[in-house]
């Protein structure tokens, strides 16, 4: 069996993989009882694929046992997913076609479940992919690999929504962008459990643009760990990252936000903003910008700060009549909502904002 990474490795020091260790050899059964699937949908009606415990329950796209993209660099968890997935999904959108909206729901049941998603967008193709990871009532390890290729001028909007309560959710998305392709990705990760979510973007063609944003809400004794790497391989590409991390209780929210600019990738325009909000002193936020810049004619603005709710702002709201929890929730929403601005379509951003408000209200 492949080795799981250890916390002693720098890239894994904030990850909590204990459930992966425990459930590594326990495959999820095929017949666990399922919760109400409709309540898990973010946007309705949409083409939908549901994988429960790694087994295909419902399918849109092409349910298969997809082969991973072998050209992608090795990754300890994504490679386990490729080796052990029982089911997955292939989405091909042809040249100039609009693939519409596809929701893919991963339901952690019990045991370990692995899946592989492949998305291939031909030149000028478009797709909106909503990936949801949720769970039932038992510990699980849900390990998902997404390999996506965007052809010239293609556009992918990806929403990653993780609302697990029990298990370990791990995902690794690898998105390669050809000339003038665009990726807009927004993650909303609200959990008291363990999450490791990685997004690795390669900007391989001039004029390619990637926006990779997200909100993390760590409650309970959560260990939410995000890693991004936006790799500018050619001149004239653009990347934007905006992450807002909120930690409450004993929760820990972490991000290593990476930007890498290759030696000849002049005129790269990259920006990154990482901010944390601590709701109490037992919570923790870790922000780590990782910039590797080997070209000299590059704009790479970055900022990173951790704070608390400003008592004067809160008092101003209270003095107008908002009870303290509502004042806090409003300030938390203001802090976090910026990450959702990457979604131009209100049909997507509104339901996500509503879910976010619900989670924040519960923390306030």
């Amino acid at each position, binding site marked *: 069996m492949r080795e799981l990474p250890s916390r002693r490795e720098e890239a894994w020091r904030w990850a909590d993989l204990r459930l992966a260790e425990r459930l590594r050899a326990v495959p999820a059964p095929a017949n666990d009882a399922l919760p109400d699937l409709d309540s898990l949908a973010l946007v309705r009606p949409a083409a939908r694929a549901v994988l429960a415990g790694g087994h295909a329950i419902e399918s849109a796209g092409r349910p298969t046992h997809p082969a991973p993209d072998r050209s992608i660099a090795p990754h300890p968890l994504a490679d386990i997913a490729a080796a052990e997935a029982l089911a997955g999904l292939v989405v091909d959108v042809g040249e100039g076609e609009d693939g519409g909206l596809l929701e893919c729901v991963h339901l952690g049941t019990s045991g370990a479940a692995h899946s592989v998603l492949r998305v291939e967008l031909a030149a000028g193709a478009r797709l909106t992919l909503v990936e949801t990871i949720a769970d039932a009532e038992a510990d699980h390890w849900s390990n998902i690999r997404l390999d996506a290729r965007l052809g010239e001028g293609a556009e992918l909007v990806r929403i990653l929504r993780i609302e697990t309560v029990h298990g370990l959710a791990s995902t690794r998305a690898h998105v390669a962008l050809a000339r003038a392709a665009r990726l807009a990705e927004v993650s909303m990760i609200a959990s008291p459990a363990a999450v490791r979510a990685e997004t690795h973007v390669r900007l391989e063609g001039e004029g390619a643009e990637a926006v990779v944003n997200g909100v993390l809400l760590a409650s309970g004794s959560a260990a939410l760990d995000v890693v991004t790497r936006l790799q500018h391989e050619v001149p004239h590409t653009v990347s934007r990252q905006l992450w807002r991390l909120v930690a409450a209780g004993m929760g820990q929210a972490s991000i290593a936000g990476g930007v890498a600019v290759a030696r000849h990738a002049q005129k790269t325009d990259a920006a990154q903003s990482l901010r944390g909000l601590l709701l109490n002193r037992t919570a923790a936020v870790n922000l780590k910008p990782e910039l590797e810049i080997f070209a000299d004619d590059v704009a790479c603005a970055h900022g990173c700060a951790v704070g608390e709710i400003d008592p004067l702002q809160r008092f101003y709201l209270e*003095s*107008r*009549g908002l009870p303290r929890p509502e004042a806090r929730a409003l300030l938390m929403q203001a802090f976090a909502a910026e990450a959702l601005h990457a979604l131009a379509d209100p049909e997507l951003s509104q339901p996500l904002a509503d879910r976010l408000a619900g989670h924040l209200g519960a923390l306030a």
Partner: protein
Amino acid sequence: MLAITDLHASVGGTPILKGLTLSVGAGEVHAIMGPNGAGKSTLAHVLAGREGYEVTGGTAVFLGQDLLAMAPHERAAAGLFLGFQYPVEIPGVSNLLFLRTALNAQRKLRGEPEVSGAEFLKRVRAEAQALGLDMEMLKRPVNMGFSGGEKKRNEAFQMGILQPRFALLDETDSGLDIDALKVVADSINRFRGPDRGVLLITHYQRLLDHVRPDRVHILAAGRIVESGGPELALRLEAQGYGAIAA
């Protein structure tokens, strides 16, 4: 309406208010004047319930209720409005959304029905027009990118929408040019009424040329040291605070 008796308060362990007594009846407008650092803003924050402003003695009764025992949002729902000397900027929170949420939170606590979106907008349009505030600006985040004068007009705007029983206005006149001063003074005069009270905190006499107070008090070193009619403000303007502080 508001009766403050022998109020003592400390900030960060330092006593600032040292036995302040003041009473404002329904229908009255009172002004508090005093040198910088006298404790005027401290009094305003203590009355509104700001954390860290510790009451160490005395009482404040507002419409028959023990004001000092209430949470800040309960004071607002009871009808107290504080116009801030330094209105706070809140990125990401739309002015109008915030105000509507606040208005409905107050109404809920008072057991009144919510204000409909249409009714709210009607009030907003009327009040914005009276204060010369742009609707687009009001949709922006609270006080963000507002000039000093716009922030003060926004305080008056919020007062107009929330319709409190008692307005405690902390230097709402400072930073205003003469036209804006008249606009804000008009809004205070419109607010005046037999069931309402106003306490104007001001450093200068000029606001009182437009809003004529019933009583003027001088606050120095944490206490009211002198009270009188409007003529007291004029005398102060002529003589300066030096004479009082001494």
